[in-house]
């Protein structure tokens, strides 16, 4: 109970601080005060002043979309991870690990290479469709009347990721130089060069999944009892599952389309939150959203400052941090996996 009281304000503070850091740090150093003024200038019609035009320009066109994209995608991925873990009744489910992100990336790759004139929304749409199909396939493969099996889930994820990897490899072979660059970025995940239309799309996805997931928080709790038990409590389990799967596919699909594959946020964040406040989805979902947003923004700051003036793809940073965490998790759960 005490945990919950301090966690909300501290996460909110972390979110604000990380966002300010994210708009301040970069090749052009802008002081946090100036950044704050610049953001206020952008947000409100007031002219607070003391911001040089070139600083305002950098913030408006580069730093702000980048920061907002990191926040939105982090929040979406963390919530999708939390919901998938609830849906599969398994704390190891994550869009990356079970192959959904790879599926979505394949969808995006198909669009980039084969329909180059399709434009960004086409890419987002095909990433979403491919993500949805992958989620449904993995879900079918891993489900049995007694629940979902972790072993099957991970194996299905491996198989799907391998298949998607082969598909992307084939497309890479066929691609021209322009498409090749896009494809590589896709697989590593990057927030660099964030564009406003992707920011808006991601924010819409964030609003949609946050609203819908939070509406289902109580039902998700009940679902953890088991499908039969949830049904006895009056839940329409099949409808609920389908709705949540589609929403996860929308969230992950749009995230992948906007930034490529960013792994482990969906796995690590809900875990950390659960360790602090327990598994109740009413707390877990909003807190995961906040922590996911802050963590991805932080990882992105790392991505652009660790090897400055060059840049690391942010997916690399999250994988470097997340993969060891996943291994620890596996070791802790070893006795339950068989």
């Amino acid at each position, binding site marked *: 109970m005490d945990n919950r009281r301090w966690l909300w304000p501290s996460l909110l503070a972390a979110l604000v601080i990380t966002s300010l850091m994210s708009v301040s740090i970069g090749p052009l150093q802008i002081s946090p005060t100036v950044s704050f003024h610049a953001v206020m200038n952008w947000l409100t019609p007031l002219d607070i002043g003391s911001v040089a035009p070139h600083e305002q320009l950098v913030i408006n066109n580069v730093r702000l979309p980048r920061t907002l994209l990191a926040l939105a995608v982090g929040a979406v991925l963390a919530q999708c991870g939390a919901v998938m873990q609830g849906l599969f009744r398994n704390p190891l489910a994550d869009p990356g690990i079970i192959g959904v992100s790879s599926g979505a990336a394949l969808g995006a790759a198909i669009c980039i290479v084969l329909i180059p004139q399709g434009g960004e929304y086409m890419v987002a749409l095909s990433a979403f469709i491919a993500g949805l199909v992958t989620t449904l396939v993995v879900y079918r493969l891993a489900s049995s009347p007694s629940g979902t099996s972790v072993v099957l889930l991970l194996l299905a994820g491996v198989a799907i990721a391998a298949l998607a990897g082969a598909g992307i490899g084939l497309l890479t072979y066929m691609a021209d130089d322009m498409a090749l660059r896009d494809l590589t970025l896709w697989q590593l995940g990057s927030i660099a060069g964030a564009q406003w239309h992707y920011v808006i799309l991601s924010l819409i996805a964030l609003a949609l999944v946050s609203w819908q997931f939070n509406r289902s928080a109580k039902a998700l709790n*009940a679902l953890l009892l088991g499908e039969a038990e949830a*049904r006895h*409590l*009056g839940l329409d389990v099949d409808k609920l599952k389908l709705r949540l799967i589609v929403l996860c596919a929308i969230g992950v699909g749009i995230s992948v389309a906007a930034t490529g594959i960013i792994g482990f946020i969906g796995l690590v964040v809900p875990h950390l939150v*659960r360790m602090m406040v*327990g598994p109740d989805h009413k707390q877990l979902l909003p807190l995961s959203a906040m922590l996911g947003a802050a963590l991805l923004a932080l990882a992105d700051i790392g991505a652009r400052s660790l090897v400055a003036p060059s840049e690391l793809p942010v997916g690399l940073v999250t994988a470097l941090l997340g993969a060891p965490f996943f291994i620890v998790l596996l070791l802790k759960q070893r006795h339950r996996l068989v």
Partner: protein
Amino acid sequence: MQTDSLTPALEVNRLSVRIGHKPVLTDINLKLQPGQVTALLGPNGAGKSTLLKSFCQEVALDAGEIKVYGKNVNSWDRQLLAKSLAVLPQHASLTFPFKVREVVEMGLYPLTLNQQQGKRLVDEQLEQVALAHLKERSYPTLSGGEKQRVQLARVLTQLAQSERPPILLLDEPTSALDLAQQHRVLALARSLAHEQNYAVIVVLHDLNQASRYADRLVVLENGCIVSDGKPSDTLTPETIRQVWHYDPVVVMEPGKQTPLLF
């Protein structure tokens, strides 16, 4: 809603269930009234658990129908049905570290209560199963018996707003419990039936428990009802020999009408 006091809580008409090609239940007819504990008995594979599952739509019916308060169970509104009919599962595999209180709160799902009313109800039900002191404990750390009682508290919470006498289905509720707890749970089931007019239907293996706590016994063999009635009429040496292939010594509990078997 007004219900005729003669409308049975559960009515089973010509029910048949197959799993694969194997008939599991054949032509079952039953009427179960509120205010009674009915025990479903039979050897392993007789179909008693399947019968219980068919009451809560967990198995597909091959033929026949099941009515809850006169209305086909499939045409009930899900949430409305959940308020009047609840199931205590045999194993509840909840591995996420919910607190005991949070597990019981899941029973509030179909109800329309404000936060304070919900909290009070959850406290009452935890009191009823004597687990109020474990309220803030993590569920996966409990013993099997304690888990079972937490689930019972959840299920009773679910039934708190029933518009009709609630129907409580218990699937081998005593399998994980020690002797004292077994009697405690069954005594609670009996008092719910006798004092609060619940219709309690319980699958049991222990014939003596059934004899002591149930008002009515339904004995199944190979998916058919072979005996149905008061314990003293159903637990006869002939029935037991025929169904369980076992030759019992039957004595009457001193001063009561309950047969005891050895």
